[in-house]
Every structure is written in structure tokens, then in C-alpha cells.
């Protein structure tokens, strides 16, 4: 009975939604300090390849691979961020775009390590590892009325859900703190922020590196969810996808990129004919949004409106009366 409701296909889309939310955050966090990064796909690829290669060649546990992949991406984030930040904002966009392309070129050409454009298959799969562990402890999915396949996807989905919820919680709390205020101040007026005693270099590198870590982390997870990666997964189109999640959803509040990732991951699944014209639609959407609503669909006003609706209905919303950011 339970089994009938659990369709691995939908679960897989659910997993992509969650990974895409993490990716959208990887653009949102640097953008909340006014930095436009087009390198998310590159960092994602770094994380994915690092984790995949480590788990395949050294038979390390997935968790070690994921951590290593995340850290490598973060390290490159610092390496890119520091020299670029001394300059105007446009340089960062160019450098990150170039970086993403170079990462892809390296994946294609370093065949001895990456198998070139063929890609790497047989990457340890998170779901199967979880199933294996459970079975070692004498647990059988059949006892819940689930097939192995269903259990695998269900376990991945819940694992990713917990991770994503944690990350959203993390960055929401950060945004309501001294660090978050520093980010917002830099975004609104860099010079004024600096004269108020904020070390703008430090916070900009911090935000950029957090973005790189998030993308690397999402990439590592991606590798172990799909069990197959190739350079095409981390091309410029991926960078555009990730950028559009945040631009479309909104770059003022954390709910923007989350909404963007959910909506735009489902849309091509629901409307099949759209997927062929997806990038043309994305392109037009960006142009129109920048002209009409540059802050994206979800902004502070909308969040406040929703909150007022919710509180009017008499729902107790905790005693805190903090602001939407």
C-alpha cells in the first residue's frame, strides 16, 4: 500500500529539487554581498570529481569523499576570490565565468584521471550504501512493504531533505546575525559599510567561499546520487540554470532561491514541451525580470505580506518578532 505511493521517478525529481536548492544557495550567498558568481557549475564539478575519484580509487567512505570535495571547492573559492575582490564587481563575473570553462576543459582533457568527455561511471551510490548498511544490521526493506529500489530512493530523499533543511536553517540564522548584517551592509553600500568598520574584503571572501563550499557540496552529493558524472554536467548551461534559480526566485530573501529551484526544477517535468525551449525561455525571463522586477519574484514585501496573512489567521508564530531577512 505504502509501496504504491512511492514512485522512484518522483523521488528522483525530489532529490534533484533538493540538490538544486543547495546550488541556488551557492549563488544566493555571494550575491547577498553583491557578488555575482558564475562559477557554481565549476565548483560543483570540482566537488563531484574529487569525491567520485576518491571513493572509486581509494575506496574511501562516501562521507569522506563528500567532505573532501566540498573542501577542495572551498579552497578554489578562496584562490579565485582573493585576487578578484580587489577590483570592480564586473571582474568577478568574468573570472568566475572563465574559471567554470577552464574547469570543464580540464575535465575533458585530463583523460588519464577523468576519462575525458566519456565521464566517470560506477561511482558509489548513497542509497545503495545506506541499504547495504541497513541490511548488515539485519533490516530488510520488505518488512516495511518496500522494494529495494524504493527504499534506496526514499533514503536518499530523506537524507537530502535533512541536509537541505539544515543548510537553509544555517544561512537564515547567519543572515539574522552580525555576519548577516555585515553582508547586507556591503550589498547595500560598500563604502559606507567600510567606514562603519566592516572589513569588506574578509566578508566578501567569506561569502564567496561559502558559495563555493555549497556548490562543491552539492556537486559531491550529485555524483553519489547519480553514480555517473561527465564534464557536460558542469558546463556553462548548468551555471546558467543555477543563476536563474536565484534571479527568478529572488535574491533579497533566502526563500527566493528556494522557490526558484523548486519551481524551475518541476516546470520542465510538468510541461514537457517547455524543456526543448527551456533556455530560450530562461533567457527571455532574465531580460524581462531585470527590466521589471530585478529583485526576483519573492521579495521582502511578499514575505511580510504572507506573514501578515498567517498571523491574521491567528496562527501562533512563536514569540519572536524578527524581520523577514
Amino acid at each position: 500500500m505504502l509501496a504504491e505511493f512511492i514512485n522512484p521517478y518522483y523521488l528522483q525529481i525530489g532529490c534533484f529539487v533538493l540538490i538544486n536548492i543547495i546550488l541556488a544557495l551557492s549563488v544566493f550567498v555571494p550575491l547577498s554581498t553583491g557578488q555575482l558568481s558564475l562559477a557554481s557549475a565549476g565548483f560543483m564539478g570540482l566537488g563531484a570529481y574529487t569525491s567520485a575519484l576518491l571513493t572509486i580509487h581509494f575506496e574511501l567512505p562516501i562521507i569522506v569523499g563528500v567532505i573532501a570535495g566540498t573542501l577542495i571547492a572551498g579552497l578554489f573559492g578562496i584562490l579565485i576570490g582573493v585576487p578578484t575582490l580587489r577590483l570592480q564587481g564586473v571582474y568577478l563575473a568574468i573570472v568566475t565565468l572563465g574559471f567554470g570553462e577552464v574547469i570543464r576543459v580540464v575535465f575533458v582533457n585530463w583523460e588519464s584521471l577523468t576519462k575525458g568527455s566519456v565521464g566517470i561511471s560506477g561511482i558509489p551510490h548513497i542509497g545503495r550504501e545506506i541499504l547495504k548498511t541497513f541490511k548488515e544490521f539485519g533490516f530488510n526493506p520488505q518488512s516495511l512493504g518496500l522494494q529495494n529500489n524504493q527504499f534506496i530512493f526514499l533514503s536518499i530523499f530523506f537524507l537530502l531533505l535533512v541536509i537541505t533543511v539544515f543548510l537553509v536553517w544555517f544561512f537564515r540564522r547567519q543572515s539574522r546575525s552580525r555576519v548577516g548584517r555585515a553582508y547586507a551592509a556591503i550589498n547595500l553600500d560598500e563604502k559606507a559599510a567600510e567606514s562603519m568598520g566592516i572589513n569588506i574584503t574578509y566578508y566578501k571572501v567569506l561569502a564567496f567561499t561559502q558559495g563555493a563550499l555549497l556548490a562543491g557540496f552539492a556537486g559531491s552529493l550529485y555524483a553519489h546520487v547519480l553514480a555517473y558524472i561527465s564534464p557536460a554536467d558542469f558546463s556553462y548551461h548548468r551555471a546558467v540554470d543555477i543563476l536563474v534559480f536565484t534571479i527568478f526566485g529572488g535574491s533579497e530573501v533566502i526563500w527566493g532561491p528556494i522557490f526558484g529551484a523548486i519551481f524551475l526544477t518541476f516546470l520542465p517535468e510538468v510541461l514537457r514541451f517547455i524543456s526543448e525551449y527551456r533556455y530560450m525561455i530562461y533567457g527571455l525571463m532574465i531580460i524581462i525580470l531585470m527590466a521589471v522586477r530585478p529583485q526576483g519574484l519573492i521579495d521582502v514585501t511578499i514575505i511580510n505580506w504572507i506573514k501578515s496573512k498567517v498571523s491574521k489567521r491567528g496562527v501562533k508564530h512563536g514569540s519572536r518578532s524578527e524581520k523577514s531577512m
Partner: protein
Amino acid sequence: MVLEVKKACKNFGGLAAVSDVSFSIQKGEIFGLIGPNGAGKTTMFNLITSMFPLSSGEVIFKEENINGLKPNKITEKGICRTFQNIRLFPLMTAEENVMVGVHCRSKSGVLSSVFRTKSQRKEEEHIRSRATELLEFVGLKDFAEVSAENLAYGQQRRLEIARAMASDPNLLLLDEPAAGMNETETDDLFQLIKKIQSRGVTVLLIEHDMPLVMKLCDRIAVLNFGKKIAEGTPTEIQNNPQVIEAYLGSEEEEEYA
């Protein structure tokens, strides 16, 4: 001596915006910096706060040469400023603006912020109460939740002062705080700056409102074409022929009445 400016020069391209200006400010005084438009007053502020590097000369703050420090380090040392063309954080509330001002006097990092450690919560509470106190100090208590862009002009000016005060400065630089204010607001501002002085904060003030400057300042330096042409008490300045010449020779004459 709180601040000592020694032979400060600043050239933009071939143009000397400030040349060979020296003055020093005693602890606790209100020091005025006046002069016609384009005399180099705001440039002087930018040099003191390191927004621009000096071409030559020195700025000494509390016996320490602060040349070449980054602007945020200068704020940490105890100099904070307001801007001629108000630069608040427009989308933040008044309270948040002031809370940003406390930044360099607090230290919570990412992890303590996210996991709300005990010391972080205590610090955050302190920041909030400091903001509340300062909003009250400048008379904006009732506007804590209003976003800065929705405040009236005079309120924005006072909010900027509160934000600067939040960094606990020894020296406060005010760039034309009375610009665009009506008479009542200017009177309130006078009281406010006096209160700031009584808190032991030294004030360096750029202002075009001459009656206010004469009433407020202990000493005044006059700049013209990037050079200092006079320095002294308000009475001395008012009777200085060079100063009168500089003002009568410019479009600012009506303000000198």
C-alpha cells in the same frame, strides 16, 4: 591632542584638492572646518578616514600615525564619520542601521552566530540595547522599525549620527549635518552635538550654516582652494579679513550674514 593633521596634500591628476593643510584638534572640543564649496573639506574627511590615500603628509590620531590604514581599521581605532550625501543602508530599518554601526565593537563569527552560543546571545542583546539607546539619544526611538529610506530627510541625518556613534568613536566627523534642515531641526541638531560633546566625544564638523558653526565650535579652520587660510576661535574667524574675502568672493556670501 586627539587628531593632528600635518601638511596633508592630495592631488587628483594634476589638480591639488588639498595642499599643505595642517591643524590639530584637542580632546573634547568641537572643531569646525569651513570654506566655500570645493575648498577641499570633504576631501579632508576622506583623507582622515583613509577613503583616499594621502599624496603626502601625515594624519596622527592619538599619537599614532594612521596613514595607509584601511577605512575599517580607522573606524576601529576610534574615528567615525557621516556623509554629506547621506549613505545609510536604505533597505535596513533604523535599528539595523545602528546595529551595523556596532560591528567593529563586537566579534561573533559565523558559527557562534548560527548556533547562538551564550556569548553570542549576550553580545546580540548588547548590540540591540546599544541601538535602542542611541536611537533614543538622537530622538528616533519611535522609528526603530522603519526602513531608513522611508525616514524624513532630517531623521536620516540624525540616524547617520546614531550609526556613527554606535562605533564608540573618540572622534566623530560630521559632514554638513545641518544641510537641508529647517530651523527647529537645526536647533535640535545643535543640542544633539552638544550632548555628543558632553559624552566626551571630540567632534570635527563641516558645515555651511554659519550661525550654527559660530555657536557650536570651539575652534574653526577655514579652507579655500585646498589651502588653510585661517584658524582660530569663532570671533577671530569672523573678523579675519582673508576669510571675509574668501566668502565674499564666492557665491556663499548670503550664508555668511
